[in-house]
């Protein structure tokens, strides 16, 4: 009898621990709580978001204040990024958002720079000023072209003549 009691207690403990672990994975790590709860939803539009993904963090001066909740294309073919910020955050209306990279190849996230206006952003409003993501490949491409351009005379003529020669 006593033995079964101990067993049942351990079984109960096991089920609780297992459900607790599932809940921790779902809510704390999986971030299930963000869906549905209204904090301070705002959005911004960018020309280029590169590798930004939903759930990417939004921070101010390195302190996390929210996360990206959705990415879509607006009517003018710009990327609209919805984010959910801490509801206690008082963000001036002339703040700006930039997509930056952590490290050389790290994840993209959004960095906010607060403006100076006295009025604060209300839920659903747009962050007016944005700075698009730098696309590393394009940057490298430009750099290579620039490097190739400067000793223009010999290299350009060499390769150009090869390509244009058969045309006439």
């Amino acid at each position, binding site marked *: 009898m006593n033995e079964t009691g101990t067993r049942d207690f351990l079984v109960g403990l096991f089920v609780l621990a297992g459900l607790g672990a*599932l809940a921790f994975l779902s809510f704390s790590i999986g*971030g299930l709580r963000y869906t549905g709860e209204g904090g301070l939803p705002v959005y911004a539009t960018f020309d280029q978001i590169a590798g930004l993904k939903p759930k990417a963090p939004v921070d101010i001066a390195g302190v996390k204040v929210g996360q990206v909740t959705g990415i879509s294309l607006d009517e003018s073919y710009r990327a609209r990024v919805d984010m959910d910020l801490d509801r206690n955050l008082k963000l001036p209306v002339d703040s700006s958002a930039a997509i930056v990279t952590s490290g050389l190849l790290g994840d993209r996230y959004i960095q906010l720079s607060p403006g100076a206006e006295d009025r604060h952003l209300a839920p659903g409003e747009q962050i007016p000023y944005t700075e698009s993501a730098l696309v590393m490949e394009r940057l490298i491409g430009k750099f290579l072209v620039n490097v190739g351009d400067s000793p223009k005379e010999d290299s350009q003529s060499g390769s150009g003549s090869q390509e244009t020669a058969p045309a006439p």
Partner: protein
Amino acid sequence: MGAGAIRGLGHGVGDVVESLGRLAVFTARILMVTVRPPLRLREFADELFKLGVLSILIISVSGLAVGMVLGLQGYNTLVRFGAEGSLGAVVGLSLIRELGPVLTALLTTGRAGSAVTAEIGTMKATEQLDGLRMMAVDPIDYVVRPKAWAMICVMPLLSALFILTAIGGGYVVGVGLMGIDGGTYMSSLENSVDFGNDVAGSILKAVIFGVLVGLIATYRGYTSAPTSAGVSAATTSTVVIASVSVLIFDYFITALWGV
């Protein structure tokens, strides 16, 4: 020679189809008694103890070890790109999407699935199953049902415990030994893991693996030859068949649902 080989192949295919059919009938019999009272909660709780509580040690020790290895390997790779801040994401995602459910299923197969087969097989060899039938009690109802359902329930719980201990193991190595910031590790983990994309899929995998291991283990025990050699053969084949099916199903779940 060639014709013989083809005939052998045909025979083999026939065997596989036949045993799949028998497994389907067996499954249907379990489902038919699933909600038939009495629900046998006493037996179910005992099975939760045997399959779940007694597996905690192996699951947490393995989880810790796997997490520490992931932490070490991940750190050594990431540090070359200066991205060691993403260690939490690497450890967490690989565990939640893949390693957690799969390794838990393999460990549980070896630890608990084999025990289920051996117990049912021994009950068959010692005529306990026939004894139940003579007492007008269906062995599928009294013996198989609690074991199969306990396996299904235990698997996602063990998988979650495995993942958490492994994330802890990665933390110990990454933060404790390699000096990554603890907050960076956790925030990289939380930022990269999504409930809908990752955690829900992880739970789905664990439940499907629980169904697989539970069915295979009880079926092999129930159909084992009633001798000690028969029971040992059935136990071995449970471990082999269940492990291989877990890996095969893992591929298809990943391919179909993208988790």
